[in-house]
């Protein structure tokens, strides 16, 4: 699990980031927290994309994770960071597993649309429900770690980084198993995979569930980082679109890519909003088109070209 270049890089990078975070100014720490939270969801979407599937509705699971934290907080007073994270991932994962029974038979545009429909059902419910905060959402109390309430964001930052590290290592390993190697095979030729003796439906179900667990965890972490939840920035179809955007921006080549792509996205968004709030969507859309046309392998393919890191499939 630890003997390939990707794993070694991940471990080193996590170490450097954790240590560096202790000395970095708040705004940098925040960028990393938001970026790495989102990166978890991107990791899952990347696995689906490698299989040839694009979901335009993963904000459903992201939102479930976030709102699970919010509800646990407001109704049960749960503030422990690990419980919150677990809740987010489990709620989303169970939903994903159940929905996966249906979803695994869909492809292409129908797969994308069914996910959209389900996510908008949740959006519709939350937006109109007072007790769920409707359009305003609600705030979340600060997270505690083993009962202790930290003074700064640093401990949460470290936890998010370590969670990201764990997820990346796990997915990296997964992609080297028979199940994982089937991503591109299924995308290339499903019929052959069935004929060779492997159930494509089972494989897709597993990948879908993994992606929903990750998205739920991402939502939980994001909720904790932000200190609040609201439907517009967490469940609406535009959020699903953003997740897809970052997935394409990052590229499918390596588990490191989602983290780089998510950071780039955070930085881009922060600066775009500061310089020209009217132009954020324009920049995002134009970047999207540029990647689709000129760099379909995303940022990671650029990094590979520059020769820095070897692509480990």
């Amino acid at each position: 699990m630890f003997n390939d270049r990707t794993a070694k890089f991940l471990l080193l990078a996590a170490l450097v980031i954790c240590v560096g975070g202790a000395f970095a100014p708040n705004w940098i720490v925040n960028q990393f927290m938001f970026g790495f939270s989102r990166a978890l969801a991107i990791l899952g979407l990347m696995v689906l994309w490698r299989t040839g599937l694009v979901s335009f509705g993963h904000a459903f699971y992201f939102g479930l994770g976030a709102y699970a934290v919010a509800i646990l907080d407001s109704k049960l007073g749960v503030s422990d960071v690990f419980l919150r994270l677990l809740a987010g991932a489990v709620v989303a994962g169970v939903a994903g597993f159940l929905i996966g029974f249906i979803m695994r038979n869909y492809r292409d545009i129908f797969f994308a649309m069914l996910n959209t429909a389900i996510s908008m059902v949740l959006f519709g419910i939350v937006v109109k429900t007072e007790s769920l905060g409707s359009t305003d959402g609600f705030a979340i109390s600060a997270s505690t770690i083993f009962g202790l309430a930290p003074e700064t964001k640093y401990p949460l930052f470290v936890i998010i980084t370590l969670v990201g590290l764990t997820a990346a290592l796990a997915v990296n390993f997964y992609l080297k198993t028979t199940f994982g190697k089937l991503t591109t095979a299924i995308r290339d030729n499903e019929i052959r995979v069935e004929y060779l003796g492997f159930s494509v439906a089972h494989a897709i179900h597993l990948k879908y569930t993994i992606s929903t667990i990750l998205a739920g965890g991402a939502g939980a972490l994001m909720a904790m980082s932000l200190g609040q939840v609201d439907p517009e920035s967490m469940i609406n179809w535009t959020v699903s679109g953003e997740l897809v955007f970052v997935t394409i921006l990052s590229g499918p080549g390596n588990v490191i890519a989602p983290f780089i792509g998510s950071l780039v996205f955070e930085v881009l968004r922060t600066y775009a909003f500061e310089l020209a709030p009217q132009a954020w969507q324009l920049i995002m859309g134009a970047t999207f088109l540029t990647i689709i046309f000129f760099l379909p392998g995303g940022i990671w393919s650029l990094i590979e070209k520059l020769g820095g890191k070897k692509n480990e499939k």
Partner: protein
Amino acid sequence: MRNSSSILQVRNLLKTFGAVVAAKDINVDISQGEIVGIIGANGAGKTCFVNMVTGYLAPTEGSIKFEGAELVGLGTRKITHAGISRSFQVSQVFHSMTVSENLMIALAIANNRGADALGLMDTPDLRSKLDEVLKRYKLEPQKDATVSALAQGVRKLLDIAMAVVSKPRILLLDEPTSGISVEEKFDFMDIVMGALKEDGVTVLFVEHDMEIVERYVSRVLAFYQGEIIADMPPKDALADKKVQEFVIGKEHHKKKK
């Protein structure tokens, strides 16, 4: 014809698509180790037969028994697990991956069943099996080439090699030499049949080229309009009046020199 050492028993197979009868009264026994050629004009029912035996199509009526067990209703995956594989007329391979990667996937699926599928795929054991297949099918020179860049002939070899790694007991090849140039056909079939002979696989292959059929098979099944009109050794089949009229037509007479 009723043979106790037959491993494949087809009885009264019927396939209709609405008013169209694609297959009718198909009764055949195949013995272990036979090499059978399936001939017939386009649309005669050959590929339909292959699709039914391998579980891609369900017959309207009839039974297909493999070593006594009923295959009808099982589906392609279970039939592959049972020991029957097939290759495709248009090679069905993973075009964005290399030849080695294609074979590794086939080997992994065949060897890593159930929970094993969650273990690492690239193991020394699988690698040595890969080397063996590459050698058998003379694919070593192209082992790191991406499939989309390969010639048709190599792709078909790969297609067949992938079907064989699960060590099937029956292999159905659907027009293995179609798309391969006339000069290369025999070399191609020599490689394939040579490799298959080593494992003692029972082979049925659909073929249009009668010279290939004569050279490699011990028995011919001739199809016409969904029915088997002849079931005999190749020399007899080619001399049979019905086969000549409905399958070979005048072309073969022109070819014979």
